[in-house]
Structures are given as C-alpha cells and as structure tokens.
C-alpha cells in the first residue's frame, strides 16, 4: 500500500476548497506545491525529503481552513474582473449594433414598441457597462490608494446578471422583430450575436456569484 504524499494531499484539499478562474487557480496551486516541495527539501537539509519533512512543510504552510479564505479572496476578485471586463467590452458593442439596427430599419418601420423597449434595455446595458468599467478601475491600479469594498464582487456579479437579462430581452425582441419586419436577415444576425454574447456574460456572471458567496479574508 502506498503512503499518501502529505504535500499532494494538502494541495488537493486546497484545490477542492477554491473556486475561480481555472488558469489563475492552477497557477496559484502550482506555486503552492512548489513552495511546499522547497520547504520540505529545506527541512530535510539537503537530504531526500521524507514524510516527516513534508508534514512539517504542510504545517508551516498553514491549514486549508486558515489559508483558503485569502486564496479565495484573490480568486473572487480576479473572477469579478473577468466578468466586469466581459460586460464592459461586449455590452457597448452590442448596444452599438442595436443602435445601427434601429437606424437601418427605421425607414422600413421597426415596430414602435420594439424601438422603445430596445432603448430602455440599452439604457440598462449602458449602466451595467459603466458599473463594470468602474469595478475594473477599483480593483486595478486604483486599489493601490483605495481599499476594495468587500461586497464589490457581489455587485459585479449582479451587474453582470442584469446585463445578461438586458441582453436576453434584446435577443428575444430582435429575433421577434426580424420575423415581423421585412429586413429579417440583419435583425436575425444581430439576434444571433446577442444570444452568443448572452451566453458568455451569463457563464461569467454565474461563476462570479458562486465565488462571491464563499468566505474570504482581506490580505492585509
């Protein structure tokens, strides 16, 4: 029977406790594993690290209960930044395409309720994009001077969710309009683009909500 490696067990337990962007999480775990391996080698003082050295390195590293909240804090902020970046980039682009569609279709008579609804939904989307851009600034260089609000990731998650809902309403509206109006091809194209954007923002906002619910501690 093989004896489980305390370092691998510890890294696996930490991995199970953390949620967030896969690439950043994998990088943090790789660094944690490297640090534990180095520490075990140091404790073994040049010899081959044994189980005792590995267990000592794990103890010095800190228990999962102690250190996971600090790791999760960073992962949650990174996830919030991913979501905010998606909203800040995709939503203005979509708003522009909706605007162009309204202009193009105006001569043909896009149904008035559709124009009004698109304008309102566009307003919600624009507000979401502005909030997302502000969140990116607040968690980037601006955070050197100002503390990051604890509930900011949750706010970003719900901003993403609101943008997502706005995008979904637009998709339904534009697809319906495309069926009713004569210029169906352009409307259908914008509708498909909107649905694809909805899927991307929804996935990110969902991950952000999950991360924002997990316990975190500030680093300092």
């Amino acid at each position, binding site marked *: 029977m093989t004896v489980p490696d305390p370092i691998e067990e510890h890294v696996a337990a930490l991995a199970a406790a953390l949620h967030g962007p896969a690439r950043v999480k994998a990088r943090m775990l790789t660094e944690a594993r490297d*640090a534990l391996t180095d520490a075990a080698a140091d404790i073994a003082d040049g010899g081959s690290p044994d189980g005792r050295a590995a267990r000592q390195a794990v103890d010095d*590293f*800190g228990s999962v209960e102690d250190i996971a909240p600090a*790791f999760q804090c960073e992962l949650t902020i990174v996830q919030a930044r991913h979501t905010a970046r998606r909203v800040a980039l995709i939503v203005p682009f979509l708003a522009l395409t909706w605007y162009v569609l309204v202009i193009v279709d105006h001569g043909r008579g896009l149904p008035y309720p559709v124009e009004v609804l698109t304008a309102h939904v566009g307003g919600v989307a624009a507000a979401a994009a502005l909030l997302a851009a502000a969140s990116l600034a607040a*968690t980037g260089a601006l*955070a050197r001077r100002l503390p990051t609000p604890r509930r900011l990731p949750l706010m970003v998650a719900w901003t993403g969710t609101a943008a997502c809902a706005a995008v979904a309403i637009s998709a339904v509206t534009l697809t319906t309009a495309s069926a009713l109006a004569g210029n169906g091809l352009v409307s259908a194209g914008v509708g498909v683009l909107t649905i694809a954007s909805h899927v991307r923002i929804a996935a990110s906002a969902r991950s952000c909500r999950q991360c924002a619910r997990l316990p975190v501690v500030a680093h*300092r």
Partner: protein
Amino acid sequence: MKGDAVRGHLDALLLAALEQGPLHGYAIITAVQQRSGGALELRTGTMYPALNRLERLGLLRSDWQSVGERRRRCYELTDAGRRSLAEERTAWRELTAAIGAVLDPAPAPRPAT
C-alpha cells in the same frame, strides 16, 4: 515574531525582499526570514495570494523562468512597486519614530538648582 506581528506589513516586506532583483515565491520567504535574522516567520500559505494581489495592482510583474531543474514563477518590482516601497519605508519610519517617542521618551531636563 509570529505572523500576527507581520500582518499589515506583509506588502512592504514582500516588496523589500524583491528590491535587489527577481525571486521566486519560496526564495522571497527565505529572503524575509534571513534579512530579519530569523525573527520574522511568514506563514507560507498567506504569501501567494498577497503576491497575486500586488501583481494585480501593478506593483509586481511575474513570469515563468527556469530555476535549476524546475520552472518557477519569478516576481520582480515594477516602477510603481519601487515607488510604493519608498512610500512604505517613509510611513514606517514616521510610525516607528512616533511610537518610539512615546514608549522611550527622552529624559526630561533636570530643573536648575
């Protein structure tokens, strides 16, 4: 000196450890312990989220490099990181001077007889 005493100064310690040049994570911990004569014990696990945070703030940059036989993520100070370290040093000196003046006051001059 345990981790509680270090809390609140971790960013400055990490930035100072990187002042001389790029280091990977475990080497940063070793540098802090050596420079403090072993008095400061950093809990290894708390350091990696802090390094990530400092990189997000633009105070550090990092890259995977070959160190010995392994690939390690090495960190180095950015220009903003050097400026931040200078500010942290100034703030620390002002704080220690103020606290020192309270804890260890200069003897009052003797009244003239």
